[in-house]
């Protein structure tokens, strides 16, 4: 049950990372010249979709060790969700742009929470695979 809930939460974060930069917290409007944030949105779509797929696998696979590996993958994807707007691709240079004030912080928050939830899922799977009964309350 705990695993299913965590998997569903990672799917939601994956969806937010994938479509958020185009809908809920959009990047700047692309004119003739494509700006950096446009590519950030594109890369987040790729990473977000990957997180959703991994999350669905987490939901349907019951073998603990595979779930542990999938949770590890989710953690890495979470790191990418944070790094794409901050380090790898970046956003626009000017501090007043929408992608700087809204999209980047939103992605940082989503990515960090995604990492925390995936880490919890990883601990849960590892403990279960080693036969221990556990129940973490704190994400």
């Amino acid at each position: 049950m705990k695993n299913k809930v965590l998997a569903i939460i990672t799917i939601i974060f994956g969806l937010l990372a994938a479509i958020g930069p185009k809908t809920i917290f959009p990047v700047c409007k692309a004119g003739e010249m494509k700006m950096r944030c446009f590519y950030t949105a594109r890369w987040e779509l790729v990473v977000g979709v990957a997180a959703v797929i991994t999350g669905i696998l987490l939901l349907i696979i019951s073998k603990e060790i595979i779930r542990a590996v999938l949770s590890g993958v989710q953690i890495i994807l979470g790191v990418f969700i944070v790094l794409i707007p901050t380090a790898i691709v970046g956003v626009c240079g000017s501090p007043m742009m929408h992608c700087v004030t809204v999209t980047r912080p939103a992605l940082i928050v989503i990515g960090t929470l995604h990492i925390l939830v995936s880490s919890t899922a990883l601990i849960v799977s590892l403990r279960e695979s080693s036969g221990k009964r556990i129940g973490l309350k704190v994400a």
Partner: protein
Amino acid sequence: MRIIDIAIRKLINGKTGGAAALIFALILSFTAFSGRILSDSLFLGANNLKERLGADIAVVPKGEEESYQGIILSGEPVECSIERSLESKLIAIDGVEKVTPVVYLASLNASCCSVPIQIIGYDPETDFVTTPWISEGYVKDNKDGSLIIGYNIAADSEDTLTFFGRSYEIRARLNKTGTGMDKSVYVTFDVMEQLIKDAREKGVSFGEKDDITETDRITDSYVSAFLIRVKEGYSPDQVTGTILRDIPAGVVQSKNVFSSVTEGIGVISDFIRNITIAVLFIVSFVTALLHIYRVENRRKEWAVYRMMGASGNWILELIFTETVLLSIVGAVAGVGLGALVVFPFSELISEQLKLPYLRPDLLEIIKGVLFSIGLTAFSSIIPGIIAGEVAAGTECYVLMREGES
């Protein structure tokens, strides 16, 4: 085994039944932490603004007083023009120490993104508001460049910025102010002339003056505002009165800008404080109920402890430790969540509030963290004692036989 060890193990294994109480502790510490950082940032911004205003009085075209405040507080682009010839009249007024003209021009395009930035032209010969604030650490080797940029302006890799199709080299950067000045670019009047000419080609007019021919130096005839420093011994009110009587222009006093800001901040910080107090009471009340509920659910466990020889006080102590630990864990999570919202979104918050906003230093942040965790732990003391009393007060026999008939 000590009580604290038992409580920690119970917590790690999730056997306290206190998840709901944990979430309420999280809400309280989130509110306390983000509220405190928010009001600290606003007060810091306001103090910085006071130091940074520099001029005592700004003389602007009639009706543009509001827009001038907008430039200072949030860097909102504005365009207005006033006759330069007034400069000599202003300096002649009794009580005026210094006068410097400034020109405001809104750009269409800066670096990568098309964004309206305020370009501020200053007169290097008379300036006393811009150049004193150049950050020493940021002065570039080549001091011949033509732009001074505000703290928040991003330069491209070659330290240039492009305005109206012409690129300009950056000379220096100003210190962070937390005000609209962080989002402006400063140029001398010579550069401003070029910018105005280029802007006109792109369809941006400066003050919509028709009587200026292409060859005229516009800044010789028109500027956007005059900044005035009042001589010591004279009050800004006195000088303002004289200016309003003698000169056909609007006047903004710095102290008015500042007092309107502190008024706004006062309202916000009162609101934050009230919300925190309200949340504190609600959370204390709800967690008391939740802790009683979770303790009631574990009656058999208490009975077992009693049979093993534990005293009522021992049980009270265990429940109390569990309760405080739960609230501390919740508080830490709440502070984490608060940090995740307040720090990344600081630009958005300052933009939405349209008030000076400066992030507090590390020491203040640590104080905020300790305050939030302390407050949350404090809020759990009374619920912890009540829940402990409930469990410790019932007789062992009643506990064990309960539910049996």
